[in-house]
């Protein structure tokens, strides 16, 4: 099976500071892959580098057989890659409906209504809140909106950056459940960056551990969950 997304020896810098030190990573079609790591390990940087902001200094990023390493961000995001960015970043003064429309703006599709119905099936709460301003939603609803907005472009690959950030455990379970349902029903490929290692590894088919900008461990979700060093570093006292 060829990879939908593969990173080879990717390095990235913020000014003079090296944030990624030669990352190799693969995501296959239909998989949920998670990337876990401590604060400042470079998880979000890796996610942003895939999106071309910042661009990788060396190494290559291949998506669907084409090299996207040097493409500008907006062109990468038009190749059926969608991202729900860290901190949700919804459009606060615009309504839920307008937020969702923004997600479909550049994909050039004509059946926006059908896609939106699918999003509403996944997150019925969004339908109830359709005319409300994004900024008035609760944290969990905002995360649903961020994911829903990303789904509006009918992506093949969904990038999720810390969807559990600042949410109650019950809401986190709800959102992770929705991601699993989506993956099973439509075969959507998901790359999930998480600090909530326990939940993320249970959800994912495979996982990578990022330490100081380099991958130190990889394996299936169950394998990683069973490793004593993972338990010690990321799971102590974090059982939900």
């Amino acid at each position, binding site marked *: 099976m060829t990879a939908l997304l593969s990173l080879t020896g990717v390095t990235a810098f913020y000014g003079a500071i090296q944030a990624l030190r030669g990352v190799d990573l693969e995501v296959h079609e239909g998989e949920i892959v998670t990337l876990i790591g401590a604060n400042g390990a470079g998880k979000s940087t890796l996610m942003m580098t895939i999106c071309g902001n910042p661009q990788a200094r060396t190494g290559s990023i291949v998506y669907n057989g084409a090299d996207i390493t040097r493409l500008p961000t907006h062109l990468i*995001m038009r190749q059926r890659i969608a991202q729900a960015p860290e901190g949700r970043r*919804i*459009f606060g003064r615009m309504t839920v409906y*307008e937020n969702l429309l*923004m997600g479909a*703006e*550049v994909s050039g599709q004509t059946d926006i209504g059908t896609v939106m119905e699918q999003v509403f099936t996944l997150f019925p709460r969004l339908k109830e809140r359709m005319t409300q301003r994004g900024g008035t939603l609760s944290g969990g609803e905002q995360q649903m909106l961020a994911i829903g907005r990303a789904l509006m472009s009918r992506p093949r690959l969904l990038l999720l950056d810390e969807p559990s950030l600042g949410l109650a455990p019950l809401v986190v379970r709800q959102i992770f459940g929705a991601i699993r349902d989506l993956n099973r029903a439509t075969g959507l490929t998901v790359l999930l960056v998480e600090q909530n290692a326990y939940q993320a590894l249970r959800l994912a088919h495979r996982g990578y551990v990022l330490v100081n900008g380099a991958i130190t461990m990889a394996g299936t979700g169950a394998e990683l969950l069973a490793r004593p060093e993972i338990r010690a570093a990321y799971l102590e006292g974090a059982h939900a």
Partner: protein
Amino acid sequence: MTALKDAFLSAAVALGLFGPMVGLVTHNAAAGLDLVPNPIAVAVLVGMVFFGRLGMLLWRDRHQGRPQAPNKALAETLTKASRYLTPALLALAIALPFGGSRYYVDLGTLVLTYVMLGWGLNIVVGLAGLLDLGYVAFYAVGAYSYALLAEYFGFGFWICLPLAGILAAFCGILLGFPVLRLRGDYLAIVTLAFGEIIRVILINWVSLTHGPNGISDIPRPTLFGLSFSMDGGEGTFSDFFGIEPETIQRVIFLYYVILALALLTNWATIRLRRMPLGRAWEALREDEVACRSLGIDVTNTKLSAFAIGAMFGGFAGAFFATRQAFISPESFTFIESATVLAIVVLGGLGSQLGVALAALIMVGGLEMLRELLSWLAAQMDSPFFAGIAGELPTYRMLIFGLALVVMMVLRPRGLIAGRDATATLTKQQPVARETG
């Protein structure tokens, strides 16, 4: 007791401020400037501050439990009223010249020019969220485009109007490129500098623009080829309709031209807001990173906002040139940018009706205030007011500034702060049928 102390303190601050500013008036005397003290005016102002502050504090003590109530009521009233306000204002604007007063038509033309500038700047600042302190540059480019094209090539107003818009839009893109990476304060500084650069170029490029002397005898617009010349000869408006030539005909014609231009700006903005481009502007104002993540080309979106905003500034500039028949760099100073920006902020960023109201208040209201103060001064001819009456009209800006401060305290997000959704669904409509 604390309220009394607070009021005394406020009065002391007022005394310190108004003492030199109001209490000492300069007069031209035979041997240079004379200083004339004006203690009554200071006493009145300090007294107003003292009792005003005391009253405010006492009122607040009594209403401590519900401090939000009046503000909310005001907001609701304004929202309700705005539904009837738009058609009422439009009807008033169309009917104004039938009042027959040259003064009001002239004032209306001035107000509408600022309404149009406000709507143009609203695209850049209100919708796209790019703080532009140099909007007057595009006004100047539009005005000089027409004036120069008319002087050197003899072009008429109606040919130059679109050209002025295009040239201003081009300048908007020119400004847009270097500021693409800038945000907030830094963006504001560069746009401010851009406005000054254009003005300095107009002053110093004497061979083309006649520098500080300006350009005079700019031709007036025609109505389908009919000129508004006073000689009443062949091909003039008065000759065609068989009436006596009068200046008021041209004044009213100019009024309707700017009304049409302003409505065009409004219509275009409303249309754009419902289109993907307009929605992208608003999304950009909310969150640039999110826009990138959704595949929106931030560069093009920003440049288009600068270009389209500048284009309407250019139209307004061309109109200004033809109305005044004389322009010089003096007309395009920073204060113009500041006024237009104040109109947009006061109206409520992004609100079309708010901007129109704010322009009416800022330009029309200021003029009305001058009238009102002159009238008041004329009424106060008792000797007790001798010190104040004559000076009253000069307090215009002071009163106006105070009104602006009070307004921003009461409605910090502008007159009309709410934002209308650009896309809505009715309850019965299934989502699947709506395709954006």
